[in-house]
Structure formats: structure tokens, C-alpha cells
């Protein structure tokens, strides 16, 4: 299994936990790229990540005693680490720093499918009426209208714009189905960021980030960031909403075969609505990613 770990994936920053949820002085365990990891936070609140040996979940530990550490970055409320040599910076989400936003981590959910399959599901609007019935979409409004996709060379990310879909209750005040407009970014092979029109302020956008932790080639953990302009909903409401959505996606994704994402264009049948997924697959292929995918036979 390990031999498919390409150097690109190895040298990326990967999300491993919501920083707030890491206990201070206790061991938390997880797996990244088939590698067992242990995590904790020191008294200063800073996360510490290292290769797990015999540490067990919940064991007491003093972070000061951990000498062989993996690189760590805290960003967007999450702890990120790397098994190789990481770049200096993680992809930017400038909105996160705006002072009037509610930023929150909405929980982490394990899914028995590869991380790139989960990214593709996040980019997909066509499943809204069928999987997120009466929330993100509802029959008979099933059309995915033409949208634009580009791979930005400057930022090295996939960008889908003008993505429009009719949603039954796009805003709390909505009584009739209305069209919402999304922008999707894929700034990291296993992360995507969604921008959608904000019901409270027409000039701004709500931001939802999906960060996938590739546990193994066929398993991942989905970590979700919400950065909202919402003065009325409670954090519990917003978290419950996202967990409902995830709960609906999970059984579908776990029935997807093969579990790894096939990069051969002839492995599956794309339609125009899948433009962003096609661009994403091509982008992964060009980068030379082999982890969690079935590379195109050369």
C-alpha cells in the first residue's frame, strides 16, 4: 500500500484535527497516509504531533517530553501536519480573518472512501435533489446549468464559477425555490472551499471549507470549516445542519466503486455537469498524485 505514496502527497500539509478539540496533556491518536500518529496540546495550547509508537488514546502526556516532532501548522481552526518537507504556506482563505465572521469547525466524520472521491462529491451539484432532498435541492428542479471551470496556473488551483442551482430553502426567509450561486475552489488535492451567496448581506459570501485527511488510500476523515455571516443561528444549529448533510453523503460515498478515484477518462461516464470533476481529475493526474487514485495507465 505504502509504495503508492507519491512525493507530492507526502510533502503536503494534511489536516489531522480541530485544534480546539485536542486535549491538553492527553494523547489523541489518528492515522494519516497509513501512518499512525499521536497528537496532543501543550500548556501553551499549541498542538504537537509525532509518529505514534505505543501511545494509547487518552493516556496522560507532557508535550514537553515529545522530542521527535512532525511539522505543525495551525490554520482555519485546524491542526495540519506533514510526513515530508512541507511548503512554507498553506493555501489562503482570506475571509477567515474577517472580524465579523463566525468561524467554527463542524466536526470530523470518517468515510470509507478515498479522499479525492469525497472532494468530487463536494464539487457536485447534480446529487443535491437525490441525496440532500428538500435541503440543498429537490425534484423536479434537477438541472445543472452551464458553469465555468478553469485551472488557475498562478494559484495552482481548480476554480469553478457561475455554478447555479435551484434550492428549496436557500435562505431561512425563502418561501419559494430560488437559485443560488456557488463558487468552488480546489486549492489543495484533498481540500475544497465553497463560496455561496450570503442571505444576510448581498455583497458578501458565506464560506465552507472541506478538508480531507487521507487516512489510507480508501479511507478518509472529512473536517469541515464554516465561516459564516450569520447573526441568528446558534453554533449547534449550524453544526447540526452540516452533520445532516454529511450523514446523507456518507452511505452514498461508501457504496462507490472503486473506492479510489479513477483518473482514466474512460473509467466512468462524465456529463457536462461534471466539468469541475473532470478538471479536478486532470489536475491530479498532471500533478502526479497516485495516492487514493487509480492513475491513468501510461
Amino acid at each position, binding site marked *: 500500500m505504502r509504495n503508492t505514496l507519491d512525493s507530492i502527497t507526502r510533502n503536503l500539509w494534511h489536516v489531522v484535527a480541530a485544534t480546539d478539540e485536542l486535549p491538553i496533556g492527553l494523547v489523541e491518536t489518528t492515522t494519516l497516509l497509513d501512518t499512525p500518529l499521536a497528537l496532543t496540546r501543550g500548556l501553551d495550547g499549541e498542538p504537537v504531533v509525532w509518529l505514534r509508537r505505543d501511545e494509547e488514546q487518552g493516556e496522560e502526556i507532557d508535550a514537553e517530553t515529545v522530542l521527535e516532532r512532525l511539522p505543525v501548522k495551525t490554520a482555519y481552526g485546524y491542526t495540519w501536519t506533514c510526513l515530508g518537507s512541507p511548503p512554507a504556506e498553506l493555501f489562503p482563505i482570506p475571509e477567515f480573518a474577517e472580524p465579523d465572521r463566525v468561524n467554527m469547525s463542524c466536526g470530523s466524520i470518517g468515510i470509507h472512501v478515498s479522499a479525492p472521491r469525497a472532494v468530487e462529491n463536494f464539487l457536485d451539484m447534480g446529487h443535491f435533489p437525490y441525496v440532500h432532498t428538500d435541503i440543498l435541492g429537490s425534484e423536479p428542479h434537477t438541472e445543472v446549468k452551464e458553469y465555468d471551470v478553469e485551472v488557475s496556473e498562478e494559484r495552482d488551483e481548480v476554480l469553478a464559477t457561475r455554478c447555479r442551482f435551484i434550492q428549496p430553502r436557500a435562505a431561512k426567509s425563502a418561501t419559494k425555490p430560488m437559485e443560488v450561486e456557488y463558487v468552488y475552489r480546489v486549492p489543495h488535492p484533498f481540500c475544497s472551499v465553497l463560496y455561496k451567496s450570503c442571505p444576510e448581506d448581498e455583497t458578501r459570501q458565506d464560506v465552507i471549507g472541506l478538508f480531507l485527511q487521507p487516512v489510507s488510500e480508501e479511507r478518509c476523515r472529512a473536517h469541515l470549516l464554516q465561516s459564516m455571516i450569520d447573526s441568528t443561528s446558534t453554533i449547534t444549529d449550524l453544526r447540526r445542519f452540516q452533520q445532516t448533510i454529511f450523514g446523507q453523503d456518507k452511505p452514498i460515498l461508501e457504496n*462507490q466503486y472503486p473506492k479510489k478515484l479513477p483518473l482514466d477518462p474512460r473509467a466512468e461516464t462524465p*456529463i457536462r455537469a461534471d466539468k469541475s470533476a473532470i478538471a479536478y481529475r486532470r489536475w491530479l493526474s498532471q500533478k502526479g498524485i497516485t495516492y487514493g487514485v487509480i492513475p491513468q495507465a501510461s
Partner: protein
Amino acid sequence: MPLSLSDPTWYPIASSEDLPFRHVYQGQLLGRELAVWRADDGTLNVWENRCLHRGVRLSIGINEGQELKCQYHGWRYANGSAGCTYIPAHPADAPARRIENRKYPVREAFGLVWSAANDDQPFKPFPDAEAKAWFPLRPLPVNASPDDVVAGLARLAPDDQPADMLPGMAVRLETAIYFVQPVDSGRSVIRGLLAEKPANEIAALRHYNEMLTKLRDRLEKAAARKPAPEPLQPSFEKVSVDLATMPDIAIPRGTTFPVLVKRKWQSADGVIGFELADRDGKHLPTFQPGAHIDVHLPNGLVRQYSITNGPGELMSYVIGVKQESASKGGSKALVETVREGDVLAISEPRNNFPLRRDATRTVLIAGGIGITPLLSMARFLDKSSLPYELHYFVRSGETAAFRSELEVLHGEVRTHMGIGRKAIRKEVEAILGLHEFANHVYICGPGPMLEMVQDAAAALGWPDEAIHFEYFRNDKTIDASSSFEIELARSAMTLHVPAGKTVLETMREAGLTVPSSCEQGACGTCLTGVIEGEVDHQDVYLNKSEKASNSCMMTCVSRARSHRLVLDI
């Protein structure tokens, strides 16, 4: 003997009772997962357990009676052919390219459902099969290799009466036959049949269950001591290049195939019904509501007729033909010379009149023989429990065709009889009302009526994209005033097309053999690929997106907007 992915043997894969009404059963044979379902008409389907779009298991899909609907994006696949009939993300487009799932042969016999990895062998029942009234036992899964399970079953026989080893991993012990379903290299299911129905069914089932459970325990213990065999690695077949490259449209090939005229009958005054079926009783190609076929007539003409069938009805196509006295030998030839038992050549179904299923209101307006495509649409909407209204206008003195088919529909179906021309418009206006979001109207009928309804709808605020219609005849005035060059890429020839002459005529004069039929831009026979240049489309055959793609043209009427066209010919 190691299992082979290409083993042609028929094996039982399910019990008949595993397939209750509207259920989808997940089976497995030789390492391949299967989605097994029974349609409302009784047809059994054994398909690869995977939607071609994104690989989601079809066994978690919804059996809608005549179609299987994928849970992920609502793609629908037809009973029998496994062909995709509808892609909800693009409701205005017919899935023109042939998206067809992989399917396996199936037979139901002796209370079991049988299948095989390929069609290499016909189904052959085991010796004496027909002579007895077989009683199926409860299936028993065993985590052991099929060969070991067969050997284990054989060892159950008493010493003086050895087991009878039958072909296809089957063992006869006294009055019972046990079939071993090779699920994978290390997994099996024992499916037994008793030669007759026991007096006490429950006691018998319990007895055999206990016996087989003991056998299973022994086999699984032994299997655990051996290294686990490598599971079979079935590969997913690649989709064709044209499906993978996602063109807006594919150039239809124009191939024909023979069908048998199974039935011919008078459906109404002046309307004759024809039922066309495969000669060997196989299913016909997948179609979508609104689709038509080209019928090649005995007198050499080609005419288009809409399919009236509902979803998943692929054992025959039913078309309606108007007995026009004025017809120039088209319908006339069909009505007068074609009889039951004759063979006709037809094209694969093609859809220029696709039905959106994302409307909140669907209005179907038919005039006379125009009922045929709308009947099919109504049947599809009916099966999916989508709301619709069907208005059928019939001239005075005419009778409504397909009356019994219309009567069984659940939607609002109304026949308007003998209304004068002016009154019809009023009636249509009342039916349509002002346009609202996600309302769509479909019209099929004589030319003047088509134009009247379009006009009435437009006046009531219905936008173009909400008004759907189809022409079978090109009544437009062809503008042949342009002149331009054509470069024939494969024939390495450049020709000049002068004003007043068609591309088709110019090519023929240069000695090329080019097929054509109606020569008025309606039948699709002369369809040609365009490599370069801008086409001046004047036909009624290609739909809007096909025209916009600028990748093909009808050489009998269409011309060039640019000064040069490069054709794939």
C-alpha cells in the same frame, strides 16, 4: 480447479423469493457484484452492480417498476436493455450517446435465479430437471472455496451410495441436488433443491439447515487453516471513447436493423397501429420518450414515426401511422402493402423531442396523429407519478387513436372533439394560461396547429425554451442563394458550391456516392461531420444544441455561412 472470470457455466445466484415487488437484490458471482431486479412486467435483470456515471452500487438504487433509478444522481436505466433513458442534471437533452450498463444472462427456473459470466453457453437444466416439482431449500453462505464446498457436500454421501457429481459444481445426494454458487475464490453459497415438496415444509427446511450448518462449520474451520485464496479481480469494462470525451453530441451512425411486424391493427378511423419486434424475441434498443425511428419502406422511402411505448417496454415498439389519402406513397406503402409477419428495416431510436422531467407543470397538446410521441411522454410521467395534462384535439368525424392506452393513464387526459379553428386557439389559450416558472408545453400535430400553439403560448409569456415541438417535414423555405467552397477532408477534394445547387448535388456531380433520402432536411440520412467552417443550418432534423455545436450538417439543405467548409467525407 481455480475459478475463472470467464467461466461460462450457469450458476444459481438467488432464490426467486429474493426478488419481491420493486426490490433490488445484491448478488455476486465469480467475484463480480450484481444488481438483480424484477420489473413489473416480470422481466428479470442481472446487471453489473455499478452506475456507469460515478460507480455507485445500483443495488441501493430504486426499482421504479420499469426502470432502475440510481440513488446518487437519479440516472434511469431501462428494464431489459440497461440503457440510460434520462439524466436529470441535463433535463432538456436526450442522452443521445448510448450509455448502457453491463448485463448478464438470466433465467428463472426451479425456484432459483440463474446467471452466467457471459453468453457463451445456452442455459441447460440439469438432468431430470423437468420431471420433478422442485422445492428450494434456504441458501447457506460458506466462507470456503467453491471446490472445497463441492468436495464437502460429496463427502456427506453414505459409503455404499456415492454422491452423483453433476456438471457445474452440483452434487446429487439421494433426492436432493446441491448447487454451489461460486461467489468468489474463498466464498460460496450452497443452494439446494428437493425433488418434491415435503409434507412438512418447516421441518424439512430445519432438517437440511442443521445438516448444512454442520457442514459449513467443518468447511470454515478447514478453510481457516489454509492460506486465504486470492480474491478474483474482475475488471470494470472501460466506457467507449466517445462517452469519455464528453462531446455535446455524437454523430449518429445511421445503421438499421430488421424488425418483424408482429401486429397491425386499426386503432381509429384513419390510424393504423403497428407493433414491431425483434425477430429472435430479444429486446429492442433503449429509447427515450419523444423518440422516433426511421422506417425504411418497401418502396425505398424512409419515414419517421414516433414510438408510443412507456418506460422499459423494449420487447416491441408500437407506432401509429396515419392513413393519408394524399400521402405521396410514404404512409400509404406502410398501410397498404405491409402485413403482419413482414420484416422491415428500422433505425435505432433517435430523440429530437426530449421530455424534461424537472417541470412543475407539463402540458402535452396533441393534434390528430401527433398523439404518438405525447402518449409515450404521458406514460413516462405517469410511471414516475409526475403531474401532467394531456390535451388531445381530434377533428370532427375522426375518432381518437390509442383510446384504451389513454384510458389507463392517471394524469389529466382530455379529448377535445371537433372544435373549429378559431375556437381551438381560445381553448389552447385557456389550457396554457400565463407562463409560470418551470412550466413546459409539448406540441405535436399538423403544421398549422403547431404554429398556432407556439404563437398562442408566446403571447401568454411562454419563453422559447418552455415550448417544445417536433417537425417531421421541413416546411421552411430553403435559402440556396449562397456560394462557397467545400473541402472534403477524407476524399482530398475541394469543390465549389454555386448558388441554387446543394452541397449534396455538388458532391454527387463530382462522382461521390453520398446517401440521402428525403432531401428536405428532415430524415437525417445525409448527415455529415463538419471539421471546420460555420454551417448555415436549414434543416429540421438537428436540434438546437446539435446545430450550435457546428460539428455536423445535413448536406441536402444546409449551406455555409463562412466561405469554406471542411467536411468529414
